[in-house]
């Protein structure tokens, strides 16, 4: 039973869907960050898999940059989160409604 590219892509998509579920159902901002990490990682799997099956390093490069971006996102995001928490004493999504139209 040979594992092909499609196997990886399907796995990546399933993980992506799980991430989406997290993004949609979580109300805690920290948990939302976790969900976005899952989304990024699922994409990384596809990049690596495609890179492997086509014998091309570009995919790995992209995965690499995605990791870098994820790291900076976490740093800035957490900083903002802490500021928010200091100000409002909670990180509940439903309380953030200053953008109400």
């Amino acid at each position, binding site marked *: 039973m040979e594992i092909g590219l499609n196997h990886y892509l399907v796995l990546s998509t399933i993980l992506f869907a799980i991430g989406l579920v997290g*993004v*949609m159902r979580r109300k805690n901002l920290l948990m939302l960050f976790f969900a976005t990490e899952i989304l990024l990682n699922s994409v990384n799997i596809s990049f690596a898999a495609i890179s492997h099956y086509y014998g091309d390093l570009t995919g790995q490069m992209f995965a690499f940059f995605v990791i870098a971006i994820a790291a900076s996102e976490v740093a800035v995001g957490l900083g903002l989160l802490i500021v928010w928490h200091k100000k409002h004493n909670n990180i509940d*999504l439903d309380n*953030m*409604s*200053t953008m109400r*139209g």
Partner: protein
Amino acid sequence: MELFLYTALFSPLVGSLFAALFGASPKTKIAGIVPSALLGVSFLSSLVLLVLVMGTGLTLHVEMMTWMATGDLYIPFGFVVDQVSVTMMIVVTLVSTVVHVYAIGYMDHDKGFNRFFSYLSAFVFSMMILVMSDNFAGLFIGWEGVGLCSWLLIGFWYHKESASWAANEAFIMNRIADLGMLIGIFLVYWNTGTLQYKEAFAVMPSLDNAILTWMGIFLFIGAMGKSAQFPLHTWLADAMEGPTPVSALIHAATMVTAGVYLVVRANPLYNLIPHVGLFIASLGAFVALFAASMALVNRDMKRVIAYSTLSQLGYMFAAAGLGAYWVALFHLMAHAFFKALLFLGAGNVMHAMHDELDPFKMGGLSKVMKGTFLMMTIASVALAGIFPLAGFFSKDLILEVAFVEHHYIIYSVLLFTAALTAFYSFRLVALIFHGEERYKLFGIHPHEAYKFMLVAMSPLLLLAIIAGAFKMSYFEMVSKLLPATEYHVHSAATYWIMTIGTQLLVILAIAYAYKKYTSRDIAVPDGTSKMENSFAYKLLINQYYIPYFYQEYIVKAYRELSEVFWTKIDQKVVDATVDGIANVFYQTGERTRVMQSGNLSTMLKWMVAGTVALLSLAVVFGLAARYSGEIRVFLSGLGV
């Protein structure tokens, strides 16, 4: 020599800009004096150029700068001083200098004094461009420039409803004609590949006759508008709403003769198409008679002179159409002098009579206004064409041309018109200056105009008297450029009979006018006399019902059409569409603003929904692209 050319061309512009500096400030004498002085400079430069051209036969051609150069199209700002344009330059600068000086006195009490001089000088500049340009594009710029200035000046007293109406009428009529002119210019460019007079005319003999005919017709349509030929003539009489110096300068001496200038300038073209020339001559003769007949009964002094202008323009076109271009140009020049003089005299009378225009309310003014009386009488004699004044030489020449060219119908029409001209001119003189002093009934105390105004008019007076003497030297000069045809009646007896006959006819007409209008029982017409109720009188006083016809059948119809378009198409279709689009967006926003709850979680859900929508679109289009062949087959099977 180029220096003189540029001085002549640009000093009016400088004057105009100078006066414009004071445009918003209250009346300043200097705003009138400086432009007048600059025009004097321009006139002197033109005189130098005239002497040069006349003496040496040289012509001056300069290219100031490139205006347009795209592909094959090359239009420079080029100016030419040759025998034809130098004539026009002299006429334009001389008359406008006189009119400027005169206007300093005439506009003395007007609030728009500074503005007036700015417009007037701008007009002169445009006119100079028109006559000096060496290509059709430059001509067209000048053409539009004089149209604009004419609009500004007719509507100078814009607070008067009638003035702004007349200004708009003149502008719109000219615009209609300008379209024809523009088509003519396009045709010239299309078929010759250039707009330079010299090159274009050089190519023309090799072109198809039908194309040349169309060119000639369309260019003449432009000339018809500017020179107020039938059926675009109504604006000229209405243009008398403007200040009198404007009427003298623009609507008698210079702008309205631009059409004649165009035909003369395009003489190589019209020489190739004699049938169009004959049409021009016939139309000219018709307009001469037609306008003269309207002048017979009109009760507005300035309108009478305007109709006389129209009639004289008809003469010029008759001459130009018959190929006697130099005769047309000569008459143009002579006419400019005495007609401007006549208008300025009328301005004096108007001033004296406190803007009263009805000559029936005047009479006996010769006692108080000796200078004006003298000038207007001489101008009228010149207009009537009595030996030895300017009109005799130029107008009789046109009659001779018609006779020699065997166009006897045109000849007799023009001869009859000459008699009419004499009659209406002296009807006016008699009514204004002789007879009972009817103005006393209206409690007006007339006074003579300022001395310097009369002095300013004197050069015109002089020229109106002696211009005829230059006929032969002028012929020699112009014949270097224009077809040098001398018109001589072959037998001496016929010549003398014709000349003396014409003179007798004219003198009889004058005598009749004097007899009829100096009598003691002339009163202000009140619409009861038998003559006033006759059909012919009504026809003439209503200008053959042509303005009425235009109003009823063109303006009203157009208005109604516009109304329909406004209510039916603009409001119900265009406006409704625009409003509908705006409403759709407004309603969409109103409905969907609930989405914008401010809750991040909801927004994220919407985001995912959007992603799903985009992904499905990607799938749909991907499939469609992949199976496009099959889809096409399927659709064609359905008969789409």
